[in-house]
């Protein structure tokens, strides 16, 4: 039995041309978006409650002029407001406790909330920094109607100790705006009128645009969108009008759907404390096989994994492996770990091992080919580079490419294997370069040159040199130069 839609919040007197909003039953197919705004997220992410009677404020940055971004109830009661500087706030009350904003923890908390909200709907879309959008239209029946669901959402948010603003509307953008403005219910039939009453600040416009509107005497959305559309688009860009049309449902809005990130973690107690990695490897391989199975189940791959060896007394030894390309190939992962373990000397016997992977990433596995048996050269190289890096370390393996710098010392660069270098034409250059030119005691026998290189006068590495090719008495060819300033000769490379 469809529940009647509760009356929207009291509207300010609507203009005459606006039809009075009427309570109408929701249809089953109605789309309904719930927006959850967490105004005190910076505070809550730091483990504080927004209704704390103690004055607590979160500041963005560490300077005295840093603005306050979130306040506890106590701080609000003391007359502090969002946006005032830390020093001004400190001057107003003396027992203020200031905390620094932690964006990473806020993002993690929003992520956690997204995971929590998946119990109400499968369509969850976060709107950073502090909002979540849920499409709950399809869940009314399951949860016993819109009002029950709304109450349950509010109750569960409160139970988590979060100060949240919840708004429902037929479109995601309208729900977002309503939640920001502190209204709870959008009405499908009088949506334009209802949104029109929202203050301009709801749009979170850039400061300059907001000032421009203020100068025009515009304070509410209705006043904004009553302006001629073409002029508005010309002056403030088309995004504003697009948002308005999306809010009213005249344009569709595509939203990125949130998906839980999976990773793998498993632990194995060793039957006896083992010191040699060779004997531990059997157990490690078990874990990797489990990981590979999990990856296949999720149709995903990983690009990093960490192995932790627990010791009875010492702190655990952790080994981190990074892969060049996303993989889920059991043999490949085992080979990489084998190479790494070969070189690992544990400080003490291990009593347990843990394996955890990086987040699962979607991958397109190599299809088995009918005719070709040799793997793709690129895949072959990737596997080789990973094997080498597993033993020698990341920095030991690289490729080289020329760099656009006239100074010979800087005309090359290390690049990740697989990056294609441009095969530019250079004057004759030696295959071996001495990274530190070697001074020569006397002028060598020159066979070609000079090539004058004067560059770098704009920076520390200024140089003025005449390069020659020289031939030594035994017949070797050297790349030498005479430095303009000191008139001394240097050896810079070999034509090997």
């Amino acid at each position, binding site marked *: 039995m469809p529940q009647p839609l509760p009356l929207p919040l009291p509207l300010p007197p609507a203009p005459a041309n606006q039809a009075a909003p009427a309570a109408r039953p929701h249809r089953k197919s109605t789309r309904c978006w719930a927006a959850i705004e967490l105004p005190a997220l910076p505070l809550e992410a730091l483990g504080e409650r927004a209704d704390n009677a103690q004055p607590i404020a979160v500041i963005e940055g560490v300077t005295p002029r840093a603005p306050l971004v979130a306040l506890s109830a106590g701080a609000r009661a003391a007359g502090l407001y969002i946006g005032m500087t830390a020093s001004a706030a400190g001057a107003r009350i003396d027992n203020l406790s200031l905390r620094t904003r932690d964006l990473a923890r806020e993002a993690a908390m929003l992520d956690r909330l997204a995971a929590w909200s998946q119990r109400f709907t499968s369509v969850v879309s976060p709107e950073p920094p502090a909002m979540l959008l849920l499409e709950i239209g399809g869940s009314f029946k399951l949860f016993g109607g819109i009002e029950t669901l709304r109450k349950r959402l509010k109750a569960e948010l409160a139970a988590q100790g979060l100060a949240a603003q919840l708004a429902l509307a037929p479109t995601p953008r309208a729900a977002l705006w309503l939640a920001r403005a502190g209204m709870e219910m959008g009405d499908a039939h009088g949506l334009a009128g209802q949104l029109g009453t929202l203050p301009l600040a709801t749009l979170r416009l850039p400061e300059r645009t907001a000032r421009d509107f203020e100068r025009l005497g515009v304070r509410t959305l209705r006043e904004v969108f009553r302006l001629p559309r073409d002029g508005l688009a010309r002056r403030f860009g088309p995004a504003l009008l697009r948002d308005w049309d999306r809010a009213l449902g005249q344009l569709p809005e595509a939203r990125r759907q949130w998906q839980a990130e999976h990773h793998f973690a498993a632990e194995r107690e060793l039957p006896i404390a083992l010191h040699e990695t060779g004997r531990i490897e059997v157990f490690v391989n078990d874990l990797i096989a489990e990981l590979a199975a999990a990856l296949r189940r999720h149709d995903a791959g990983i690009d990093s994994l960490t192995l932790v060896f627990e010791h009875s007394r010492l702190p655990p030894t952790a080994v981190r492996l990074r892969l060049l390309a996303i993989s889920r190939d059991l043999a490949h992962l085992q080979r990489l770990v084998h190479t790494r373990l070969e070189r690992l000397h544990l400080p003490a016997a291990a009593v347990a091992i843990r394996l955890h992977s990086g987040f699962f990433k979607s991958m397109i596995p190599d299809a088995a080919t009918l005719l070709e048996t040799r793997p793709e050269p690129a895949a072959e190289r990737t596997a*080789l580079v990973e094997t080498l890096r597993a033993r020698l370390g990341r920095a030991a393996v690289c*490729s080289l490419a020329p760099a656009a710098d006239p100074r010979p010392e800087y005309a090359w660069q290390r690049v990740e294997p697989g990056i294609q270098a441009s095969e530019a034409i*250079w004057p004759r250059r030696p*295959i071996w370069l001495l990274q530190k030119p070697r001074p020569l005691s006397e002028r060598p026998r020159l066979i070609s040159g000079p090539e004058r290189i004067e560059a770098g006068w704009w920076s520390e590495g200024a140089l003025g040199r005449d390069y020659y090719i020289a031939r030594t008495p035994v017949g070797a060819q050297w790349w030498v130069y005479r430095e303009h300033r000191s008139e001394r000769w240097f050896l810079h490379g070999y034509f090997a």
Partner: protein
Amino acid sequence: MKTALNTLLARPDIWRGGFPRQDAAVATGHADLDAALGGGWPARGLIEVLHETHGGGELTVLAPLLGTLAAAGRQIVFVDPPFLPYAPALASQGFINQLLLVQTGSDTDSLWTAETCLRAGCGAVLCWLDRPTHRALRRLQLAAEDGEALALLFRPLRAAGLPSPAVLRLAVQPGHETGLIVNLLKCRSRPAASVCLPDPAFA
């Protein structure tokens, strides 16, 4: 008796002087050298390049080979080179996109890297081992055969007297006034020879 001998002689690891080699060869880019080598560079195995000084053309001889391998999409690996391979020079040789530079810091790791790369099917692995043992050379040779790759080992000229399992050993020296002199110290199924390369790039 005759059949037993023939069976023995048909084994791939038995080679006889004076008979043309069976396996494929890669052109060296110099007609004289091709003739002396019986077609070109061997396609697999260990090649020792002995040279006295740096800058004596020891890599110039091999540049066409490395270019050919790179064009076939195979990797060229420099393992612990004595100096920095200079990218602008390599870019004009045409194998920079297939190049891997590995810097290990110890001979054990150097040998391991070379073997791993050879078995992984890289085209050529260039290495500079400090006083390699006969065992190490043997391992390189086997790994190269295994991965159908070329192990290119650079050693000082004084190692010429030491025994080696290499398929090919050559000494590269700059010519008296111009060009390069390549002495073939050991070459399977070919007599030792000396070739003078009038390399225009090495005038």
